[in-house]
């Protein structure tokens, strides 16, 4: 397990480095000069040159990259071209919205999807089993922003029970206030996310229900609940956990749209603005942090799988069977 952890950690660092190279180069391939977006129509060539110099976009690419990477090692994500303010602290303050939003949505989605997925599988031949399965199919087809707008119309504009958007000015100083602001966005993401999760839980459960070992265990006199508890859940959980990792990462990245709909000051709205303004340090910073988060989530998902399934523990890649 220790070797595994070491190798996995090395893999994490290498992935991060490769991702940062890729990020840097891809952004520089975009047409346009960030200095253009800083200045006004009356800008003189001297003003443009000064702006370029100030933001360092007149330096050779390699030099820009080395200086960015150098600062990255010390957790300094650089300074925004546009605002001239440091990127790191702003990302940190935005994470105070995006991380709780992602985790709460994820939790809610799991809480909703696991029992429903199980019932949909266990009662797959009944009318409500088919109904649940059909509804989840529908859920996958519905875009998150549309669900968000629908929820706003019902709960904010008509019933007036929850805010239509925004986040408290003092962040989490009043947790109840912050949670109220996150209620609709969390439900929005969770609804869309649970739709696909239900499908995975259902198929994993169906696999287990039809398995030989479950039948054998029951033949030995165990009750269905006992059999499911001892063997079924564990076996069904392995594929579901790996999907959960991917789902969590997707939610973190996919919060962009939902944040816009609900006017939440999270990473997403910062990213959209950065892209529009050619603000490379901002885009790089956010994508780097996101990449980091996604890789860590993957790492954790791998670990959890190993805890659940002893058969995987001796392997590095996780493909034991």
């Amino acid at each position: 397990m220790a070797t595994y952890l070491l190798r996995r950690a090395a893999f994490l660092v290498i992935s991060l480095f490769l991702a940062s190279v890729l990020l840097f180069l891809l952004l520089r391939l975009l047409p346009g000069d960030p200095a253009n977006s800083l200045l006004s129509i009356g800008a003189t060539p001297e003003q443009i040159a000064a702006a370029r110099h100030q933001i360092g976009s007149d330096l050779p690419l390699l030099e820009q990259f080395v200086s960015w990477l150098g600062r990255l090692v010390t957790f300094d994500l650089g300074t925004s071209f546009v605002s001239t303010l440091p990127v790191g602290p702003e990302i940190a303050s935005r994470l105070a919205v995006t991380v709780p939003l992602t985790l709460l949505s994820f939790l809610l989605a799991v809480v909703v999807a696991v029992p429903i997925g199980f019932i949909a599988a266990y009662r797959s031949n009944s009318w409500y089993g088919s109904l649940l399965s059909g509804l989840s199919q529908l859920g996958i087809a519905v875009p998150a922003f549309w669900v968000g707008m629908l929820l706003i119309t019902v709960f904010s504009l008509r019933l007036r029970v929850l805010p239509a958007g925004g986040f408290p000015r003092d962040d989490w100083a009043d947790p109840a206030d912050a949670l109220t602001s996150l209620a609709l966005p969390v439900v929005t993401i969770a609804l869309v996310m649970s739709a696909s999760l239900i499908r995975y839980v259902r198929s994993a459960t169906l696999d287990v229900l039809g398995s030989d070992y479950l039948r054998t265990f029951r033949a030995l006199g165990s009750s269905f609940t006992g059999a499911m508890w001892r063997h079924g859940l564990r076996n069904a959980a392995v594929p579901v956990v790996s999907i959960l990792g991917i789902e969590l990462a997707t939610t973190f990245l996919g919060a962009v749209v939902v944040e816009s709909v609900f006017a939440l000051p999270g990473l997403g709205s910062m990213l959209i603005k950065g892209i529009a303004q050619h603000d490379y340090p901002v885009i790089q910073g956010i994508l780097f942090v996101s990449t980091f988060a996604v890789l860590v989530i993957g790492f954790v998902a791998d670990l959890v799988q190993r805890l659940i399934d002893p058969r995987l523990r001796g392997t590095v890649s996780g493909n034991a069977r």
Partner: protein
Amino acid sequence: MKSKMTSLVGATLMVALTLTACGSGSGSGSENAPAAGSGSTSSSTGSADPNATIEVGSLYEPQNLDNTGGGGQGVTEAFNGNVYEGLFKLGDDGKVENLLAKDYKVSPDGLTYTFTLQSGVTFHSGDPLTSADVKYSIEKVLAKDSQSARKSSFTGIKSITTPDDSTVTVKLSTKSISFVYNLSYVWVINNQAKDLTTSEDGTGPYKLGTWKRGSSLSLDPFAGYWGTPPTNKGVVFHYFTAATALNNALLTNAVDIVTSEQSPDALAQFKDNKDYKVNDGHSTTKLLLAFNDRVKPFDNALVRKAVTSAIDNRKLLNSIWGDYGTLIGSMVPPTDPWYEDLTTVNPYDVELAKKQLSEAGYANGFSFTLDTPNYDPHPTAATFIKGELAKVGITVTINVITADEWYTKVFKNHDFAATLQEHVNDRDVVWYGNPDFYWGYDNPEVTKLVNQAEQSDTTDDQAALLKKANQQIAADAASDWLYLYPQIVVASSSLSGYPINGLNSQFYAYTIKKS
């Protein structure tokens, strides 16, 4: 999902361009003497609550808090007149009034300006206002690394001296009647201030409370203010990236007022609702079909006139803004002192257009490429223009480009036949006097009028000369001024005393009352 994303990015881009690509204008003209008048604000209603905080919704968050360091349109909206004050103030009605300058004198040759400062003015940090601060503030706009859109307006300054603590003397190399007007854009900042990107030190009625980036910015009344204190207990600007979210905030009372409504479709829900007031003010933003007047066929005024007459601007305006917005027929908006209605110079008349085209030698029409910025309303307008011009035999190819491409291709390299662009500033008709500007309009008569106007002795002379220039560019159809945007402020009915024209993105909040 994809289309939603595109529109969101588009909205952000639009903001970026209006504050960068067009955020300038070597403003010409001003009031020679301080003008009276309090600006056009909404009328008062009911009894006001002096302890109310005004919640303002806006699409324009500052980039940072330094208006010479790239703060952009947002910092002007939040800070101009509220946190920082200039020697002069541009009222909501377009008139220039004294502010930190108590009085000023101009030498007979028009080259030396002597300003006397108001007494008893202190900065938010507690330091008193002195002439050295004024000198520092003007020099900050002129500095090498200054990103101020107004920098080019002050190139005529020869020297700034401070004979004593309350007197500033500025010498100019050429006469400039707009000098006082231009000074209304220069914020007077404490020359001891350290960090201007995330904090401030101004003399205005409000001081900065907190700025939570990506979300909101609050202003608290400044107890030591030298003038009339605000009529409210503070202001909070809430920032949105999507117009829909902003409208929802207004509908759920999360905000009291929207500084500039940018989604025409949303107006219906406020218009017939007694809880809200929709104010139809005058903006200074013009949508232009700008020809490249240097190249065929648009180097021929007759062709430009024909194109202008072939497009039904009223119908275009209605299709985008409904009953809002104005046709002006030339570059000058109603809030500029030299405005006149010139919509009859090139009327919508398809037969006339056809006649002019055949006179110009294009009886069978021609084709051209229209460089169209990829954000609203440009693509809509381009499609409309394409349809209109097809009726007179002109084939339009729409080339959609980003704001950044526009800046390089059209603005810098002049590599275009015609383009669409919004021009946001007041008093920007003077660009037609500059033959090197991107549209390449070169009429020596207009250049002379614009220069003479700047050298005028009185504002009346200046206005008369710029009126002539405006008439001439209309007669030449230098561009097709499609329409003037509406400036729509939507507010809760409980609010009064707010600015409705929002000239140059200003938003004076200190007279707002909530009942």
